[in-house]
């Protein structure tokens, strides 16, 4: 067969290209045992020679999560400003490089890679959704870099490259359940957005309920961003549950509470405990619709601690008096200070030294004293149940007597033994 010039040229090109590709091949994994310890690709490129040190902030500044994450970005900025004003970290001013995660896990992974490899940030702060964290985790592990993650999450995770400054399940969900049980709740209805956090949280709740004799009368998920809750609300009403445990995210809460109330359900008939509604979200939902409902967090703007008063005042003076502070914002603010404390204890920005120095480092955070647990890189937190008051702020109605040690894998709870097979 006659091969045309074009084709012949193309074949030879392709052959050459394949040869290049094969020549470029690196190591194959021959021995799985040693594979895990394969040296990481880039030795750290963090530049500690100058008078400043780079840190990365990664938050969704566009897309559906921008609503929540931009607030975290604000409080991170506040912390950076304060730290710089008081002399920086190890005498170096923080140079913040901010990246937009755009509410997409893939984007988070890509941008985190950029912060580590291209910008050589000493540490990265941010992330919100579980998927954004899960997406970034391998990037930080592969590059042996540090991420400070400031949001309550579903637990069952621990990485030496991630510091979790938000609550894990035993610092938020389990105390909330304890509270409900204490109040005599015998049956629950679970409502959540269809993604990882609610599903995992509900798995834990189911296990807890089974162990404590609480009946779970329903478990419903709405697609993220869904605004149609007629059916779910009808099911809740029909179930006559004692309480609803709400793990809905974002705007769905608005629709849920409006429609919840419109079929005649209120905090008095069937109270709702929410773990994703903070001060920021209340105005959008409409105070009428959520007043008196319960929340579970470790921080509220109304907390009466000196550190919190200072934090709230500083935040309002920087961003405006109409702005409010919330748990993830506080956790983000705390995370930057914790990193500073750890680095100063280690006397170095190097990742392994920071990891080694982390255990036991404390910070007088707005929520109270927090301590880093070096075993799982989580921090101690004080769970608080709140009730949404008439001003749209949240009052603490119950508070854990002491800070709770983080237990991401719920190893200390008998009923949770079967959660991870």
């Amino acid at each position: 067969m006659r091969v045309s010039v074009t084709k012949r040229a193309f074949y030879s090109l392709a052959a050459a290209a394949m040869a290049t590709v094969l020549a470029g091949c690196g190591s194959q994994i021959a021995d799985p045992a040693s594979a895990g310890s394969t040296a990481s690709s880039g030795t750290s490129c963090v530049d500690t020679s100058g008078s400043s040190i780079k840190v990365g902030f990664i938050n969704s500044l566009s897309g559906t999560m921008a609503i929540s994450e931009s607030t975290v970005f604000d409080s991170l900025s506040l912390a950076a400003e304060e730290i710089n004003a008081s002399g920086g970290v190890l005498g170096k001013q923080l140079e913040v490089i901010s990246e937009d995660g755009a509410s997409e896990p893939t984007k988070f992974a890509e941008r985190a890679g950029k912060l580590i490899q291209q910008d050589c940030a000493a540490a990265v702060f941010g992330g919100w959704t579980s998927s954004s964290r899960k997406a970034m985790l391998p990037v930080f592990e592969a590059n042996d870099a540090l991420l400070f993650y400031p949001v309550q999450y579903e637990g069952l995770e621990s990485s030496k490259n991630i510091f979790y400054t938000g609550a894990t399940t035993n610092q938020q969900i389990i105390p909330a359940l304890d509270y409900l049980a204490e109040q005599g709740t015998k049956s629950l209805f679970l409502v959540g957005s269809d993604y990882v956090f609610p599903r995992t949280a509900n798995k834990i709740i189911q296990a807890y309920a089974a162990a404590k004799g609480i009946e779970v009368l329903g478990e419903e998920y709405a697609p993220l961003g869904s605004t149609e809750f007629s059916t779910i609300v009808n099911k809740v009403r029909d179930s006559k549950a004692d309480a609803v445990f709400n793990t809905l995210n974002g705007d769905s809460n608005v629709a849920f509470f409006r429609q919840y109330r419109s079929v005649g359900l209120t905090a008095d008939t069937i109270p709702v405990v929410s773990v994703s509604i903070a001060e920021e979200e209340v105005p959008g939902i409409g105070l009428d619709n959520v007043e008196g409902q319960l929340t579970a967090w470790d921080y509220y703007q109304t907390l009466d601690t000196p550190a919190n008063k200072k934090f709230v005042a500083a935040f309002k003076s920087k961003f405006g008096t109409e702005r409010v502070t919330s748990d993830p914002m506080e956790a983000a603010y705390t995370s930057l200070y914790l990193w500073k404390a750890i680095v100063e204890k280690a006397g170095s920005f190097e990742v392994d030294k920071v990891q080694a120095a982390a255990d036991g480092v404390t910070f007088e955070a707005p929520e109270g004293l927090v301590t880093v647990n070096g075993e799982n890189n989580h921090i101690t937190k004080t769970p608080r149940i709140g009730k949404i008051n008439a001003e749209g702020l949240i009052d603490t109605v119950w508070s854990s007597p002491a800070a709770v040690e983080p237990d991401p894998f719920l190893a200390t709870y008998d009923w949770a033994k079967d959660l991870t097979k």
Partner: protein
Amino acid sequence: MELLIGQMFAGLSLGSVLLLAALGLSLTFGQMGVINMAHGEFMMAGAYTAFVVQQAISDAGVSLLVSIPAGFLVGGVLGLVLEAVLLRRMYHRPLDTLLVTFGVALILQQAARDIFGAPSVDVRAPGWLQGNIELLGAPIPLTRLFILGLSLLCLAGLVLLLKATPLGRRIRAVVLNRDLAETSGVSTRRSDQLTFFIGSGLAGIAGVAVTLIGSTSPYLGTNYIVDAFLVVVAGGIGQIKGAVIAAFALGVLQSVFEYSTTASIGKVLILIVIVVFLQLRPQGIFSLKTRSLA
């Protein structure tokens, strides 16, 4: 029984929201073949209109009643501008209108975020719409009832306009046969503008309505646009009658699916039903004897 009625009503109510969102779309899609992806953002504009009006008039009841015509105007004017600036040059390439209006949708979303902020804003429902009435033990939310009524009112108004006014006759003539109408002296230019104004205005009203049940945020429109298009497609292009049946059928079906499975699976099932339905009737429930698009 109680639950059955509750669910039936949930279906009807969802259907009425879909109808409200799809009514204007059906008109613009039917008459001009324009696939207006910014229709959802016109809804959003209507919703923010309700918010702005409520800032000015604190009485939620009065502001709601003012918002409805105001939302219609805002949506309609946005539509007029879009038509005049972009779409009039694109009637001969309907598919491209989809992408152009998608771009417009992006811009409007971002504009809303820059103007009103990313978090959703609160549009209060008036006191007389709080609560519910009981129908055989099932609670029928008043807001839902209001939306159902509003959508039927819009439908009646639109039908009346199309059937009983000279303007409506002109619009229908253009829908049936654009060229013939043009040659017989109907100003298609004028009737295009008017259709677009009315269709987009209906989106504005829909936006005002959904503030009663959901959140008012820059992303409000994205929640409705795909569903609204499915209603139009399943109903048959340019067929108000078809859109009505499709909207309520989809609403009830979705409630049934959602009740018997989960919300996510229900949504997937609905989409599958529509795909299969279009296999059986590629032209939708009703098909118009025009060859303008299909």
